[in-house]
């Protein structure tokens, strides 16, 4: 099929509409947010146009430094755990017959699409005293009485990993299901055990894909805005929670926007990095 370059004005018509929509409702809001991050906050009101760096200067406080450090550390921990579980899982999934894969994929998509509100609600129920998992432990005699496991750091970590796991699987799925099966067959023929061929052939072959997935899941976990709120205590609040809090409850849009701009920069840098890793994989 020959793809022709657009020449006449009418040839450009099909892309004009999506381009207009995306510029108007994505680029413009984005630019506006960037502008607001330099605006001056009006106490009691919203904000007024100005050019101040005060919103960014607040990054230098110890409180913000703590939140940032905690957010990055938590997201990294979630990403590493989720990918460590998702990689062998996705490998096994991609080796199943197609018919067997489908129910798993439907299940994973259903969990992935669940609202953070529902994931938070479900885990806080599962970890609660009245309906929680400790009731089962009491039932089988391992514990004396049910206890509450939420809120707390463990609950936040569990909830966020739960949310990130299906995402990690679906990011890994294309590269794992396209992995040449003769690679592992060759290793098996040469006498390697399945476990050994997994670690010495599959994992090294997809080193870049794994790293790229860790970065993608890291960005995904950075975006979690409700789980730290629903399953954690205020000291476990992350940057995303803080942005929401400042924008909605403190009515400090300029500061919220400045934090959001910062979050965009971190995320973009990481996404570009993971894309570069992915391209490197494609070439070799």
């Amino acid at each position, binding site marked *: *099929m*020959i793809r*022709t*370059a657009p020449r006449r004005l009418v040839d450009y018509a099909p*892309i004009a*509409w*999506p*381009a207009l*929509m*995306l*510029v108007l*409702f*994505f*680029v*413009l809001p*984005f630019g*506006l*947010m960037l502008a607001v991050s330099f605006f001056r906050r009006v106490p009691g009101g*919203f904000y007024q146009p100005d050019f101040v760096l005060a919103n960014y200067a607040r990054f230098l406080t110890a409180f913000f430094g703590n939140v940032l450090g905690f957010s990055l550390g938590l997201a990294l921990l979630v990403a590493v755990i989720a990918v460590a579980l998702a990689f*062998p*899982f996705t490998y*096994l999934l991609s080796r199943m017959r197609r018919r067997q894969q*489908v129910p798993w*994929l*439907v299940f994973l*998509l*259903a*969990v992935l*699409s*669940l*609202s953070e*509100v*529902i994931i938070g*609600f*479900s885990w*806080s*129920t*599962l970890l609660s005293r*009245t*309906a*929680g998992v400790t*009731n089962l432990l009491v039932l089988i005699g391992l514990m004396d009485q049910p206890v509450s496991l939420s809120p707390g750091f463990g609950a936040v970590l569990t909830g966020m990993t*739960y949310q990130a796991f299906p995402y990690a699987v679906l990011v890994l*799925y*294309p590269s794992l*299901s*396209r992995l040449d099966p003769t690679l592992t067959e060759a290793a098996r023929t040469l006498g390697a*055990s399945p476990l050994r061929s997994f670690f010495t052939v599959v994992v090294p072959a997809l080193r870049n894909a794994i790293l790229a997935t860790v970065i993608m899941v890291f*960005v995904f976990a950075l*975006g979690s*805005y409700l789980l730290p709120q629903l399953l954690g205590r205020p000291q476990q609040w992350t940057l*995303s929670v803080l942005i*929401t809090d400042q*924008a*909605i409850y403190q009515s400090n*849009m300029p500061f*919220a926007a400045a934090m*959001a701009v910062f*979050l*965009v920069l971190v995320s973009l840098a990481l996404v570009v990095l993971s894309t570069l890793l992915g391209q490197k994989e494609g070439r070799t």
Partner: protein
Amino acid sequence: MIARFAIRLFLAAMALLLAAPLAVVAGVSINEKKSLTFPPQGFSLAWYGEIFAEAGWRNALFASLGIALASAALAVIVALPLAWFLWRRHAPWARLVQLLGFAPFVLPPVITALGFLSFWNAAGFYGAAWTVVISHGIFFVTLPLVTLTLGFEAIDGSLVEAAATMGADEPTILRTVVLPLILPYMISGFAFAFVLSLNEYIVAYMTVGFTVETLPIRIFNSLRYGYTPTMAAVAVLFVVIAAVVFGLVARFGDLPKLLGAWSPRED
């Protein structure tokens, strides 16, 4: 033998972990009394009835469904010409527009939400119900864009050539050859956007949070006043809707291929 057993065990453990919170929520949703206990005491489906009987939940359900249908349609309408153009025309700069279409989904959602909040506020429409439809339509445009891009790539170019050789002009080719082939991908893109919009909280909250109550917003708002079995019933409803929609996509389309696996081998 041991290896196979270990694999089974690992897969079963993952399935259990993924299902556990949903199972507990399903359990508490059938409690007879208005309390969250697990294992459930008694059996009652009254809490599911409550979603439809109680005006607040019913309105939230219909608001969510309406927003999800409209915004998924908008997402497809924006993504379709873009994906077609990228496939049919040679224009490297158009990749930039494609990149814009991918951006909302890759960035943390709170950023897009905050962008919309500033935008609708500046435009003077903050709180108007229709703003959330446009916001969700743009936020989820990535999904139909991905499925449609895959769909166009899957079209055999010689079909288009053949139609052109027989004298069909571009609109005729589009109507008689391309659209029928692309339809399954349109539907799956719509389905993905629909389910995600139904579940979306932060963009909806920051655009119409104080004027329209969607189901996720209502659940979050009621969490403050304590947990009720109705909330659990709504959560189960969400899981069921997602599973049914994705199940249908899998039934009528090739889900592994949509998610990036190669087309099935001949064996």
